[in-house]
């Protein structure tokens, strides 16, 4: 079955794709087979107020659980990254209640006991491994909890590094802990007390403090101060903002070790 997808107003080209059935929260929809879960849900008429963020697979807002016919396994994916499959039953779990302990950061000394005090429930881990199996980032969650239990914060920070805080691990834990919050505390402690301090970060903070970026900020902040009901003003602001955005410079992902920006609007001084 091949059907034309509805044409958005003003679009000249219709995209055609095979339509497949998916079940969103139990209700059947026919959606183009090439779409991600997120786009398929929007195609089906859902509007995201929550549960959508970066749409690039890094923000962790769109954790989704699904099952396929004839298979008891719980499958997971990020809605913005996972392509729909025929007959999949899915629901997004953008948020799951998970307590985060408050603590005074300046009083933290970087000891494992502080994590135990903040999250004593981590000792309820029975090594069932349900958390690892449900992680869309394929992090061995159980292993970092095990590392924390033996006080190895460095290892825990390393294992949990790719965590995007989607919270799916916490939905499955029979010990009722919120693993990702515990790991975040550990990574922060790791950054402050264990990891080698990064020189360029200190340099950058110094540059910000010295006022190096103040004029650039003022330039941007001045935008939008004219009467917003005059379309010309808005157009000028938008134009200027686009120019500034284009002129900005960040270190390219494939740069050599020595890289220096040649624009005044460099992100890195």
């Amino acid at each position, binding site marked *: 079955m091949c059907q034309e997808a509805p044409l958005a107003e003003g679009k000249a080209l219709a995209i055609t794709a095979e339509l497949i059935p998916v079940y969103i929260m139990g209700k059947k929809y026919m959606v183009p087979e090439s779409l991600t879960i997120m786009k398929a849900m929007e195609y089906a008429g859902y509007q995201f107020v929550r549960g959508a963020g970066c749409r690039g697979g890094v923000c962790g807002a769109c954790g989704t659980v699904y099952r396929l016919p004839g298979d008891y396994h719980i499958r997971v994916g990020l809605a913005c990254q996972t392509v729909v499959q025929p007959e999949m039953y899915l629901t997004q779990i953008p948020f799951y209640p998970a307590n985060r302990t408050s603590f005074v950061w300046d009083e933290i000394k970087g000891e*494992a006991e502080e994590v135990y005090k903040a999250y004593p429930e981590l000792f309820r*881990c*029975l*090594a*069932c*491994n349900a958390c*690892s*199996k449900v992680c869309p980032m394929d992090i*061995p969650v*159980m*292993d970092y*909890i*095990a590392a924390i*239990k*033996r*006080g*190895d914060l460095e290892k825990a920070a390393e294992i949990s590094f790719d965590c995007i805080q989607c919270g799916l691990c916490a939905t499955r834990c*029979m010990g009722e802990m919120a693993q990702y919050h515990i790991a975040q505390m550990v990574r922060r402690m790791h950054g402050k007390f264990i990891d080698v301090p990064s020189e360029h970060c200190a340099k950058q903070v110094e540059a910000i403090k010295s006022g190096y970026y103040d004029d650039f900020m003022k330039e941007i902040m001045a935008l939008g101060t004219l009467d917003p009901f005059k379309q010309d003003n808005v157009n000028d602001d938008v134009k200027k903002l686009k120019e500034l955005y284009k002129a900005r410079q960040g270190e390219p992902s494939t740069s050599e070790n020595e890289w220096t920006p040649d624009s005044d609007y460099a992100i890195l001084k």
Partner: protein
Amino acid sequence: MTLGYYPGCTLKSHARNLEDSAIEALKVLGVETVELERWNCCGAVYSLADDDLIHQLAPVRDLIRAKDMGLDKVMTLCSMCYNTLARANLLMRNDEAKRKTLNDFMEEESDYAGEVEVIHLLQFLKNDIGWDKLKAAVKVPLKDLNLSPYYGCTLTRPLEVSIDEAVSPTIFKEFIEALGGTYIHSDHSAECCSSYQMISNPEAAIEAASKVVRSAEDQGADALALSCPLCEYNLGKRQVDILKKHDDLKPLPTFYFSQLLAVALGVDPLICRFELNPTASLELLEEKGVVEKVSA
């Protein structure tokens, strides 16, 4: 020779003196320990409820990790880890129905049927190194040291995982004598130290622990030799509470057996981390001339 090794959580925190001294001592004997690449808590206490399989996941998973590394043997230092792992291993070997249930549940792991052997370091020293060879490797005999071994509950019970004869074990005696020390028999060497009662019922716990200390002292022991961080907590770290309640008792130093092994084999005492031993342990070794006195 390499030897697969499961450390256990406490050995990575409060009982580094148990681990570090054992690893260095084994190096002297030409044995390189290979720690499991991945491991979790052993479960600490073996679950006695017949249908409580969920508590078997942790120890069995550790055994699977050992199997996945191609190990046929995994050595432990902590008595409780030894006990929990060894019993879970027997369950996987002997109970076909439970083995299937557990393997089915852990379908993301390799199937396991008890292929790996769980041993305690004392067993390894006796069976794989041999007392004669150990004796020959001793550089600093523990002469003039009267040592009473403390087996506690978990090295010799239940029978099927006992590291030696369960009723009158001699392995610890042989160990102490191989190091040149004097073995001191105590009637309470296999009585419970009070275990986790120290948290829920401290008064009864102090009574139980005091009997262990008293029995060793009465027989003329200079120190206790043990292999369990929980026993060490109750008999060593909490000894101050025992002495408060029983003022006729003298302070009794406690050593992990691996610390005694290490100093006898000439390992640098700094590596043995005696600063983690609560009672005046290092002072005793200095007094007896086993360890050179560091001038204050």
